């Protein structure tokens, strides 16, 4: 059992950083014990803390849970930026002072393929209109005939 004077002296050396490991262990035991001199009571929490610190379970290694969502968020942001850039970058060059000339280079010269002879034009018109009108009616007629078959089978 350490005397209060010895404890006080050891404590002073402890704070000065001059104690040996064995002396520190003695000090620890003294302050964790029940008979601490009233004048030294104030130092008790310090050693209690070190003791608690030494016996506490090691903290779990930090889990890297955020890594994947963050990566995804970064990727999504990058994709979104790319999309934005894609929308904005291919902006057409400024319209020239001659917009008329510009549009004319683009449009097709249909007159090259124009049928001007009335008889030929009428033949083409006749055959295309026949195709179109036949096709337009094909689906409804098929549906109607199917419905008639169903209706007949119900009778």
């Amino acid at each position, binding site marked *: 059992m350490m005397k209060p004077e010895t404890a006080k002296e050891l404590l002073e050396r402890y704070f000065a950083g001059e104690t040996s490991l064995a002396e520190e262990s003695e000090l620890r035991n003294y302050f964790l014990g029940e008979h601490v001199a009233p004048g030294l009571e104030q130092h008790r929490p310090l050693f209690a803390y070190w003791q608690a610190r030494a016996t506490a379970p090691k903290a779990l290694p930090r889990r890297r849970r955020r890594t994947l969502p963050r990566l995804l968020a970064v990727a999504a942001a990058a994709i979104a930026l790319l999309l934005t850039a894609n929308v904005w970058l291919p902006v057409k060059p400024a319209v020239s002072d001659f917009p008329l000339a510009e549009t004319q280079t683009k449009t097709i010269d249909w007159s090259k393929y124009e049928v001007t002879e009335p008889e030929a034009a009428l033949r083409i018109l006749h055959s295309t*209109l026949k195709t179109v009108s036949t096709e*337009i009616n094909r689906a409804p007629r098929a549906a109607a005939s199917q419905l008639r078959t169903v209706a007949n089978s119900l009778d």
Partner: protein
Amino acid sequence: MKYLITSLLLLVLFPAPAAAQKVPTDAISAFFSEYVDDPTFDVVYVSGKVFELFRGANIEIDELGEEELEAILAVVQDIEGIRLLHTDRRAKDHWMEAKNRIPTDQYELLFKVRTRDGTNVEAFIQDENAAINELFLLVGADQSFAMLSFVGVIDLKQLSKLQDALDD
């Protein structure tokens, strides 16, 4: 996450400038212009002005009587022009490609038909102020592929009635 939201907001708030481009009035000029110069395609254009000549010109076509001519003219009176492209090479490829090129926000599918002999027909319309201003047909068969574009005010009822007149 903040960046993501900001970028998305940017995307939503600023409509693509490319969408504001003006397009020609017919589908062939707008989406198939390179086919027009392609020598493997037959290209035909009939202007609406020629139709005016039919009445006075007294044209004799065997399979076309007076009544049928009148029926045709009733349909085409508001049509500005007909464009026609046809090829017998790589018909299947052209068919697949053409279907992907029609923008569904501008063209509405009117009908699609597939017959037993493998002919596919898809018809699209473009309308403005409740009037159809273009009828566009894609016709794909085993050995042939065709595109038809009617530009002008088109009355589908008249067009469907026309079949009866032409069948007589």
